[in-house]
């Protein structure tokens, strides 16, 4: 696979504190278009915080986020959506009383990134929501809600997509299916960051992973190489995180 070399996203010594707790402690990494990057690490290592800062939910307390050459740290979420960043949530919160189709319509109408938004029917069809399009989102099961969340994000035609535990709770057949979808999106040039606990899934879809611990990067490279690193093994198997 040939990747473009100019990063679409450059995260530079990012710091985020909550009161006395430092969730991100100088995290740096980059992603290039068409790449699928995995963020892995034990609970509390700062993966979701990183996603939240990049997607504008939190302002960074230090360091910078550069997207397509512009500094975007601290920019409001809806503006980032317009610039081409979108994400899904670990626990999706769709607009429960609106229909599935209306959920996506809002994003189509308000989330215009520069790209050409996909046609809504094709999108619903592709993510297996066509049959329930007229039902309120509250009627969906949790896997369907995750797909709706993804569809909402894709409707804005992002060039950088952040997936926060999209695969958790899916069955093996669904996992294969969603892995193919994610790879297809990357093949069209979308940069994708995946936060996930399922190592098999991560290994299957990512080009590269960043292993995080205590808000810092402790390893960068292929997952297969990561699991041989003593420091990574220590973090995953040692201490209270042994599972």
């Amino acid at each position, binding site marked *: 696979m040939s990747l473009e070399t100019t990063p679409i996203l450059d995260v530079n010594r990012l710091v985020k504190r909550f009161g006395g707790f430092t969730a991100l402690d100088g995290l740096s990494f980059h992603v290039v278009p068409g790449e699928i990057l995995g963020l892995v690490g034990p609970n509390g290592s700062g993966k979701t915080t990183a996603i939240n800062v990049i997607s504008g939910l939190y302002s960074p307390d230090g360091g910078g986020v550069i997207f397509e050459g512009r500094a975007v740290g601290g920019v409001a*979420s*809806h503006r980032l959506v317009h610039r081409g960043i979108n994400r899904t949530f670990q626990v999706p919160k769709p607009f429960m009383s609106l229909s599935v189709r209306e959920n996506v319509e*809002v994003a189509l*109408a308000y989330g215009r990134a520069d790209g050409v938004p996909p046609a809504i029917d094709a999108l619903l069809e592709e993510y297996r929501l066509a049959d329930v399009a007229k039902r309120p989102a509250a009627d969906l099961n949790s896997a369907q809600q995750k797909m709706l969340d993804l569809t*909402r*994000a894709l409707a804005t035609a992002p060039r950088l997509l952040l997936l926060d535990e999209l695969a958790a709770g899916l069955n093996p057949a669904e996992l294969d299916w969603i892995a193919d979808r994610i790879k297809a999106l990357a093949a069209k040039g979308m940069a994708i960051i995946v936060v996930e606990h399922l190592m098999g899934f991560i290994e299957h879809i990512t080009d590269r992973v960043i292993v995080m611990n205590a808000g810092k990067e402790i390893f960068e490279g292929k997952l297969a190489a990561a699991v041989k690193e003593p420091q990574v093994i220590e973090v995953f198997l040692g201490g209270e995180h042994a599972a």
Partner: protein
Amino acid sequence: MHNGFKHTLIILVPLLIVFAALPGVYQNHLLLFNFVIFLILAQGVNIIYGFTGYLPFGYVGFFGAGAYGFAVMVMHFQTPAVAAVLVAGLVGIALGLLLTPLLRLTGAYFAIANLAASLAVLHLVANPALENITKGPYGVSLTGTFNPSFAYDAALVVLAITLGGVIYLRNSSFGLALQAVREDAVSAAMAGVDVVKMRVIAWLASALVAGLAGGVYAWYVSVFYPDNVFSGEFSIFAIVFALFGGVATILGPIVGVIILYGIYNLIGFTTPQYFQLVYGLLIMGLVLFLPAGLMSLATRRGWHVP
């Protein structure tokens, strides 16, 4: 906007025709006027509560401020009534702007803070220290502009504007985005919606509606006291009527006003406490047994309610 046109044709136009014709055949014009006022206020509540999720316990604050905006213009500047009604709308917007920080609050905090704000405006207007401007607690008398039939027509115009606004919300992606914000602000932002801007627009729109209604009301009644136009009953009735019918629809608040306010007047309670008892019980029953309003009986069956 094909649906919007349809809704205008089947809801707005017939309603206006009926209320324009009724004064010719029905003698109690004050009652008809009150119907129109509550239709406006219930839709105003619909905009801010139904579409945005903020429960405006102090909604009457805008109404009263509008009425006093009208009165001050007429008393001190001899403004023609129509212009004074427009000023009343602006006063509503100005108060809304002043209160936009309240939108940072959620749920009960917003509701109570809004109630407190309306009471603060009441006590300000009714303060004897401001007698020179508002006539304080002694009330105003605006005999110069007294013209009930024009005021009634003006109320119909305000109703038309309000309903037009709600029809737009019901049929546009703007209204959809507002509801998205109501359901989950974070997800809405991730759909590209500017959450703060949307909330402020809806808030000011509903403030404008109530301000205009207050101005028209002042024009119609011409003599009133602070306690009349800041009466909590305006907020309560408007909220209950809207809830009873079903918010975030066009038809719900209309049906709510016609049924509940209709029953209220048919039974003709001579003592207000009996009505208070009935609507208190009604509110409780509504929350416990029909929390999404009458219209939900239809939507539960899969019917589309405009």
